[in-house]
């Protein structure tokens, strides 16, 4: 038994585990050093936690698109980052128009609802179009084929939007109501961050409710288990797939507006990093699993926000804050190696076709 087990260990395993243990030790050591010297105040940690939660909320809404589509088609929609970009990028024009007619600060909630609706509608349409044009004709093709198409579609969308709106940065105007901070006791929270957290939670609950309790949601889950049997129930499988893309797109669109509240500039490339991180979050939580996407996104948001100060700093890494993106990708690589099933989900590598 044990002999067998030892024989199966390869050099790669040893190296991989070695690196894993090294990184883990580094993280623990760095954290101890940082906390030991007491370099940061409690207030700083709280600030970082809050911004991590806000970021996590945004990632969660994007991650949902990856997870829903994967659940139904066993396919990773790598163009989802562009679905995310298209809505909010377009919504900056709606915001400008609302400023021009003087609504932006006179009716801020209505204006916010309008830009969210615009972003959701555009992202959703792009997602539907993507499925129709790029993925549907390839259904039944080997799994690598739609993956390559997705990457192609991703570039196509980036450059289409660059052509449409230009390559420069488009500012997302600030709203008076979101300026400044709220104090919750002694905890200081930026209003934009509070809005992002609340918005993400509300949207997440709505989406979870749809998937869990509506006829469409149950049909989606049925299709995700068995398309043929779903058809035998009278479910129009193609329509359910379209709805899934639409739902994921809308969620990404809303996420985009929340993202612009936090980082108020849009451009054609804005989808890349959040998209990749949301994908990491989806895999971390267990791809195909809705609560998992939420959990994974929150963990990733927190790690990315707190991590640089907590353990990179303690290890004496210079300019730790700039390495936050590296944290996400290190995590991605390591979950894919050690636990492809993520925290809650099924295995990414060996699922039924």
């Amino acid at each position, binding site marked *: 038994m044990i002999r067998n087990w030892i024989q199966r260990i390869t050099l790669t395993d040893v190296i991989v585990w070695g690196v894993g243990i090294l990184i883990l030790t580094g993280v623990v050591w760095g954290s101890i050093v940082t906390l030991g010297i007491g370099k940061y105040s409690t207030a700083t940690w709280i600030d970082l936690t809050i911004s991590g939660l806000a970021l996590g909320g945004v990632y969660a809404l994007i991650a949902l698109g990856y997870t829903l589509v994967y659940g139904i088609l066993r396919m990773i929609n790598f163009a989802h980052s562009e679905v995310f970009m298209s809505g909010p990028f377009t919504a900056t024009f709606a915001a400008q128009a609302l400023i021009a007619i003087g609504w932006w600060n006179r009716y801020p909630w209505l204006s916010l609802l309008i830009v969210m609706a615009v972003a959701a509608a555009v992202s959703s349409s792009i997602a539907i179009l993507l499925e129709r044009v790029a993925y549907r004709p390839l259904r039944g093709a080997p799994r690598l084929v739609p993956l390559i198409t997705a990457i192609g579609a991703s570039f196509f969308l980036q450059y289409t939007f660059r052509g449409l709106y230009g390559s420069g940065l488009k500012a997302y105007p600030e709203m008076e109501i979101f300026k400044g901070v709220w104090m919750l006791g002694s905890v200081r929270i930026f209003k934009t961050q509070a809005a992002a957290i609340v918005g993400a939670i509300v949207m997440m609950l709505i989406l979870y409710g749809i998937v869990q309790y509506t*006829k469409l949601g*149950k*049909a989606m*889950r*049925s299709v995700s*288990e*068995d398309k*043929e*049997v*779903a*058809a*035998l*129930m*009278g*479910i*129009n*499988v193609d329509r359910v797939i379209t709805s899934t893309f639409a739902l994921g797109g809308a969620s990404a669109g809303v996420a985009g507006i929340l993202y612009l509240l936090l980082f108020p500039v849009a451009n054609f490339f804005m989808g890349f990093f959040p998209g990749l991180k949301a994908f990491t979050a989806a895999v971390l939580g267990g791809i195909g699993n809705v609560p998992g996407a939420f959990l994974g996104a929150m963990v990733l948001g927190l790690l990315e926000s707190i991590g640089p100060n907590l353990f990179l700093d303690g290890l004496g890494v210079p300019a730790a804050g700039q390495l936050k993106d590296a944290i996400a990708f290190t995590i991605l690589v390591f979950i894919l190696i050690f636990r492809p099933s993520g925290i809650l989900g099924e295995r990414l590598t060996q699922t039924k076709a």
Partner: protein
Amino acid sequence: MSLLEVENIHTYYGNIQALRGVSLKVEKGEIVTLIGANGAGKTTTLRTISGLLKPREGHVKLEGEDLASYMAHEIVYKGVAMVPEGRGVFARLTVMENLEMGAFSLSNKEQINRNLERVFTLFPRLKERRAQVAGTLSGGEQQMLATGRALMASPSVLLMDEPSMGLAPVLVEVIFDTIQQINREGVTILLVEQNALMALGVAHRGYVLQTGEIVLSDSAEKLRKDPTVQKAYLGME
């Protein structure tokens, strides 16, 4: 005009021909069984009727209407429901959700509730287990669920693919009793079985399928007495 009429269908998987001109009829109110050995094409016949496969030649007609232009999910709305081979319950959905999906084609709430009552009367076990995730049900319970789920659609024709597969003899008896019960309640049934003895026991008529062709058809009683059937499918010498 028969309720269900299959006329000379030829169905292929890619280039492999699985059905070579199968014809059969099911009259309203009947239980008709389709028996045959492994690989004879029984499942393929049912899948062609339900629209999951399209025949390259021939027609499937429901009350005289050709179903060729309808997709599988549309055929459900015409009144054809299927209990697929291997049951095909949605393992991660609850029993109740599975049944709700069975009624996907219906929009009348009262009708859905009536059907649910009927299924729960037929299978009290499902009522007890309605909150349970279907993947954790026993094989027999899953068969009940698959059958109940199909009945939720208020079908006029029920296609059943080997409902006795993998069940203990006692449960097989129960399932066949239920099939007769469902039929008495007015549902026409096309029953695919390898358990020819049991199938011919409940059916009115039967067809024997061999390598994609119907080789025999008669009343169930006559088929039971047919020497070739006895030898090949009833295990008698």
